[in-house]
């Protein structure tokens, strides 16, 4: 568990490389680290190959005109989940709307 430098997430290079400062990972908001953690945890649990995620991440980086790395990560992860049939588009929209309107506690 201690050496993560050789795992697929840490080895991504170029535009897909994880944002770092002094070699340490940088998250600018809690949701970024949570979505990063969920992606890596599901990969480690064998739910998808890393390249399946990485390919979509690279596509999103090319497609989205944004400086925000984890925004693109989120889109890539969501696409992977929907395309693999793990989550439905409708339930994601519905749940996101509930959080957005504070109908659901962000901490639950």
């Amino acid at each position, binding site marked *: 568990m201690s050496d*993560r430098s050789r795992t697929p997430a840490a080895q991504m290079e170029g535009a897909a490389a994880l944002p770092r400062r002094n070699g340490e*990972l940088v998250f600018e908001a809690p949701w970024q*680290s949570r979505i990063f953690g*969920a992606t890596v*945890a599901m990969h480690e649990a064998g739910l998808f190959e890393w390249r399946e995620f990485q390919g979509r991440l690279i596509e999103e980086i090319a497609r989205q005109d944004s400086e925000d790395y984890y925004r693109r990560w989120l889109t890539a992860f969501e696409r992977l989940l929907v395309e693999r049939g793990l989550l439905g588009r409708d339930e994601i929209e519905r749940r996101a709307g509930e959080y*957005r*309107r504070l109908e659901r506690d962000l*901490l639950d």
Partner: protein
Amino acid sequence: MAEHHGHDHHPEPPSAVEARARALESLLIEKNLVTADAIDRIVEVYESDIGPLNGARVVARAWVDPEFKRRLLADGAAAIRELGISGLRGEHLVVVENRPGVHNVIVCTLCSCYPWAVLGLPPTWYKSAAYRSRMVINPREVLAEFGLHLDEDTRIEVWDSSAETRYMVLPERPPGTEHLSEEELAALVTRDAMVGVARVEVPARA
């Protein structure tokens, strides 16, 4: 007797992207495709504990430099900037010192305010309803569940964080560490000790 320092909290609507991220996480957890603990563990390892590391540097400096400690207790935000730690977004950082007879612990009763800049990401239990409510009502019992048994005559102060003010605990320097360097001391300081749910322990000599 526990004292309770209350402040305003801030249930503001999340941004669209934040709501979306939260939606994915909650659905995945509901469907048992991932657990909150697994996410915590990954984040903690990947971050190399960079957050708590900042706090540990602050604590170790305060232990070896009484003048720094004085400044730290007077104005936490200014003192951590001396060590090159930024990341506070205008909120105050109040450092509360443990000493014989007084133990401090931090909580956020209404949400999950946490001293990010020095401690990194809050662990999942910090955000749990059980911790948030019970730490205020019965801190001695909750601390005992964390394995921290305090004498009956030790006063426990519970500090309720808010959007404006974040707290961090300055733990007591353990006895028998006089020979250690500042860097060696920093390595002993854990996140839990700076939240106030643990003491700083010296590992048994090999």
